């Protein structure tokens, strides 16, 4: 899960500073802020996708828990090859916890794991949304000051 890298190079830029900057500096600040906003939006999208996948996993688990043992099912061997089989023990599930490690858990522990991950992602998402909206306000403010400056300079030239 990527953390926001902008933390190290964040500068508190106030309106007063923006007014003092030249046209070129303002343009640079706006471009930088726009790039950062896009990066943050991408991260937000990634988190949303991951949360969706986890919720699918959670739903699948729940569905699995409803099935009786011995139920006939089709087992995927490849993306296009399914083989008939029977459901063995639906109470034990293998959970991928990352870096190639898998843990055997019970059905309820597995559901709990999904819940925990979804909550973690949701809190990351909320934190990122805050940072992203602050950056967006900065980008917008810089844009406004830039426009005002351009207007200021053009009637006189």
């Amino acid at each position: 899960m990527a953390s926001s890298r902008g933390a190290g190079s964040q500068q508190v830029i106030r309106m007063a500073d923006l007014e003092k900057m030249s046209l070129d500096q303002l343009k640079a600040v706006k471009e930088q802020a726009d790039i950062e906003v896009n990066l943050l939006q991408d991260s937000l999208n990634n988190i949303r996708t991951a949360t969706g996948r986890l919720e699918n996993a959670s739903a699948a688990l729940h569905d699995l828990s409803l099935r009786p043992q011995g139920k006939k099912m089709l087992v995927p061997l490849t993306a296009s090859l399914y083989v008939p089989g029977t459901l063995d023990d639906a109470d034990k599930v293998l959970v991928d916890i990352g870096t190639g490690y898998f843990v055997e858990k019970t059905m309820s522990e597995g559901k709990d794991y999904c819940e925990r991950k979804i909550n973690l992602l949701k809190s990351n998402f909320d934190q990122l949304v805050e940072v992203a909206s602050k950056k967006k306000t900065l980008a917008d403010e810089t844009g406004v000051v830039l426009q005002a400056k351009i207007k200021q300079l053009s009637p006189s030239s």
Partner: protein
Amino acid sequence: MSSSATALRELQRDLENKANDLSKLQKDIAKNHQVRKKYTIQLGENELVLKELDLLNEDANVYKLIGPVLVKQDLAEANANVRKRIEYISAELKRLDSSLQDLEEKQHSKREAILKVQQRIQAGKAKA
């Protein structure tokens, strides 16, 4: 005055060399950032795994994916492996930090040197 013309050309060559050095430094800094990002992500993932492993009972089954094979692992061994990996990645990150600082210092002094050479070129052109 051919001597000042050659001096000027030398200064310009020096400027080119310094500019090349600067762009190499910038590429190195960018690469440093990339590797740093990769390691930071891996560190985060490994810490998550460690947290999960800590929540397990002594008798829980842990498996590691080695190629296409899922191999049963001892919980203690898995813990030790993940911890060692975390230590290694943290050490690498620290090393990258110090080399980044070094590169940024070199970049800064290279920029100053370039500025000086440019000033000398300007002075040379003004005289000729």
